[in-house]
C-alpha cells in the first residue's frame, strides 16, 4: 500500500486521501480547528500546517497524500507556529474562557491546552462584536467566532444556507441569512447540524450548556488529540 511518513512514522494512504485523512486513520493527531471529516476541507485556520522535506509548508487538511512524502508534524518549531496562530485567534476575538459556557468542551481551548499556551502573547484587539440572542433555542455570540466556516458549510449541506462570513480582513464577521439579519428570523433550528457544530462557544444551543459541570468536561481531563482520534468532538 502507498504510504507517507509523518515524523518518521509510516502512514499508509488510499488514493485521493488528504494527509489529514491518512494521519487520522493511522492515529496520528495533527492539530486543527476548521477541519471536520464530514465537510469539504477549508484550509483557513492553518493549524494543520505541516512541513515537507523540501521545507515547504502545506495544510494537511487540503493537501493530498502523495507516495513517499516525508512530513514533519509534531515538532517544536511547528507547534510554536500553531501556538502563535492560536494566540492570534485569542486576541482577535474576545475569548474569556472562565466565563464561557463552552469552557472545557471548546476545541479552541483544547488546542490551546494541547499547545501549552500560557498567555495571549499578542496585544488584544478588543473587537466590538455583536451578540444575537433573539433565537429562543440558539445563542450566537460573535465574540467567540474564529471563522472556521463549519456552520456555513453545515448549513449549506442542510440546504438552508443560514450563515455566511462577510467582510474583509480583520473586519470579517458571521452574518445570518434573514431579512433582519437576526437568528430568530432565519430557518435555523436547534437540531440543525449547523447549530451544533461550532468548535467554540460562538453558537450554542440553549439549555445544554451546563449539562456537564465545569471540571467534568471533555478537555478538562483529556488532551484534544485523544478526543479527536477517538472520534469525539467538543460540544
Amino acid at each position: 500500500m502507498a504510504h507517507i511518513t509523518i515524523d518518521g512514522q509510516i502512514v499508509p494512504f488510499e488514493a485521493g486521501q488528504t494527509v489529514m485523512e491518512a494521519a487520522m486513520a493511522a492515529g496520528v493527531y495533527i492539530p486543527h480547528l476548521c477541519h471536520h471529516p464530514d465537510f469539504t476541507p477549508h484550509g483557513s485556520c492553518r493549524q494543520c500546517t505541516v512541513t515537507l522535506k523540501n521545507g515547504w509548508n502545506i495544510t494537511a487538511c487540503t493537501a493530498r497524500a502523495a507516495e513517499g512524502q516525508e512530513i514533519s508534524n509534531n515538532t517544536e518549531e511547528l507547534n510554536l507556529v500553531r501556538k502563535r496562530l492560536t494566540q492570534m485567534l485569542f486576541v482577535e476575538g474576545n475569548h474569556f474562557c472562565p466565563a464561557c459556557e463552552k469552557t472545557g468542551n471548546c476545541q479552541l481551548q483544547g488546542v490551546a491546552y494541547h499547545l501549552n499556551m500560557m498567555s495571549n502573547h499578542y496585544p488584544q484587539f478588543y473587537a466590538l462584536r455583536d451578540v444575537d440572542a433573539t433565537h429562543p433555542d440558539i445563542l450566537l455570540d460573535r465574540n467567540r467566532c474564529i471563522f472556521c466556516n463549519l456552520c456555513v458549510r453545515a448549513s449549506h449541506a442542510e440546504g438552508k444556507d443560514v450563515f455566511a462570513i462577510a467582510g474583509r480582513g480583520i473586519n470579517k464577521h458571521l452574518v445570518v441569512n434573514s431579512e433582519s439579519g437576526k437568528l430568530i428570523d432565519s430557518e435555523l433550528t436547534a437540531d440543525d447540524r449547523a447549530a451544533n457544530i461550532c468548535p467554540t462557544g460562538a453558537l450554542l444551543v440553549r439549555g445544554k450548556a451546563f449539562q456537564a459541570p465545569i471540571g467534568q468536561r471533555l478537555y478538562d481531563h483529556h488532551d484534544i488529540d485523544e478526543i479527536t482520534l477517538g472520534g469525539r468532538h467538543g460540544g
Partner: protein
Amino acid sequence: MESFIDETLKKYQHQTTPLLMVLRDVQAQYFHIPKQAVELIAKGLEIPRTQIVAVVEFYHFFSFEPRGRYDIFLSDSITDLMLGKKALADYLCAKLQTPLGTVRADGLVSIDNTACTGLCDQGPALLVNGYAIGQLSEQRIDRIVTLIEQNRPVTEWDSDLFEVYDNIQQPGLLLNTKLPRGAALTAAWQRGLTETLDDIKASGLRGRGGAGFTTAMKWASCRATEETERYVVCNADEGEPGTFKDRVLLNSYTHDIFEGMTICAAILGAHKGFVYLRGEYLHLFNKLNAVLEERRAAGLLGDNILGYGWKFDIEIRLGAGSYVCGESSALLESLEGKMGIPRNRPPSSIIKGYLAKPTVLNNVETFVAAAHIAWQGSEWFASCGTEKSKGTKILSICGDCERPGIYEYPFGTSLKEVLKDCGASDVLGVQVGGPSGTFVSTRESDGILTFEELSTGGAFIIFNHSRNIFDIVQNFTHFFAEESCGFCTPCRVGTSLLKKQFDKIHSGHGSAGDIKELQDIAKLIKSTSHCGLGQTAAEPILTTLERYPNLYERQIKQQHSFDPVFDLDGSLAVARKMSGRDDGHAHLTQVEKK
C-alpha cells in the same frame, strides 16, 4: 426600486455570475446598496442574501451606508504620496468641508482613501464616481470642487480632467510593432492551431503577471482536459501598487489583447472569454466594449470567426476595488459573483477554473505577446531576452525619476540601465514588483531583470535619498492589512498585528525585543498564509530588516525594556472629548519615565 432592480437583472440576463456588475449599477444609482435592493436581488437571482451581503462588504466600492452623490476616492499609493497627495488631500477636504473618511452632512460628497489607482506616472490621482482624474493640483482641485458644488453631473465635466496618458517612453519588440487586425488570427489558422501552440511553446513565452508559468504548457494542459466547456480569462486586475502597464495595453493595444485571447480560445476549444477589468479602470470600460463591437462587425469575434467556423466572444466584467482579486483563483471567484477569496489548490484553475470548468487565465501582456508570436513566429520573440526568460518585459516606471512611464526591455537588462534611461539620480533603492516584490538597494543595481533574478509583474518604483524607508514600509504594510481577504488566520490577524507592531517601532515606542517580535510575526505570516498576498505581505519588512538593520535599531529609543502596544492615554481620547476636558489630570502616563 423594484423596476430598477428588475431592469438591471434583465440587463445581465438574470445570471448570478455578474453580481458585481449588478451591484455596481445599484451603487451608482442609489450611492449605496439599499437593504431592499439586497432582498430584491436575492429573490430575483435566487441566491442567499448572505452572498450579496458578503460581496457588498468585501469590495471597497460597495457600501451599505449612503455615500455622497459625488463619491471621491483618493489614491493612497506610495507614488501618490511622493507626488504630494497628502497636502492636496487636505486641500480638497478643506475646500469641500468634508474630512477624509466622511460623508458631508448634505449628502453631496464623500471622501475616502483607496489603494493605488494605476495612475502612478501621472498622480496624485483620485476617482470620482469611479472615474479617474490624475495630475491633481490645487488648480484642478478648484475646478473639481466648483463642479461638485454646482451639482454638475460627472458626465458633463470637461474631458481634459479625465485625460489619462499612455506615456510610452521606450517601446520595444511588442510596443513598436503594429499588429494588423486579424493578422495573428489568420496566421494561426493558416499555420494550424496545434502548430501555433508549438510556436508559442518554442518562443519560451512565460506568464507576464510575475509568476512566470510557461504559457504554452498552461494552454496545452487546459486543452488536454476532458471537459468540453472551457474558458479564457484575461487578468486585467492590475492592482499591484506601482503597476500601470496593462492600463496602457488596454487603452492602446486593445485589439492585440483580444486577438491573443481569441487565438487562445481557438487552441483550447473555448467559446467564451472574459476580461476581468479592475474597477479603478472604469474609464476604459466603454472603450473596450466599443472595440469588441468593432471586432464582431469585422468578423473577428462571433459565430464564425474569419470564416473558419470558430465561435468565440468576450465579455468585460468589472471588479469593485479589491487587490486580492489579482490572484488568479480569487479573480475567478469574483468573476462568479462572489467574494475574492483565493481557492485551495489543487485543483488548479487549468482543471477547475471559472464555474469549475477548465480555464486559462493569463495576464494582459501575455495575451498581447501571444498574438504577436502567432503572427511573427517564435524566432522573432525568442531572439530577445535570456536563455530562461525570453522576449521583453514591459515596465511601469514611476517614483523619483525624470521620465516616468512605460518602458519595454529585453529580459536580461540591468537595473542600472533602466535607472539611467528614465533619468533617475541619487537613487536610494527600487521597489521591483510593487509592495509584494523586492526592495533593491543601489548596492545591488548590477541585478538584471529576469524571472529568476528580479521578477516583476511590471512595477518599478524608484526612491531617491530624500525618501524615508520607514514611510515606504509603513505604506506597504498598511496596504496589505487593508487588502487581506481575511480567509486565513495568519494573514487576517497577522497583517494587522504586523501593522501595529511596525507602527509602534516607527512612532518611537519600540523597546528591546520589539524588532525580534516584528520579525517573528513577519516570518509566521510568510510561512503559513494561504495565498500569495499573505506570503508576500511581510516582504517590505523582511527585506528592509535584512538590508537596513541599523535603521530599525535606531528607532528603538526607549530606555525601558518594555512598552505595551496598548496606548492607555490614547484610549482616553474619547472620554476627554465627551467630558470636554484636556487638563493634566485627564491624561495618564503609561510607563514611569526614568
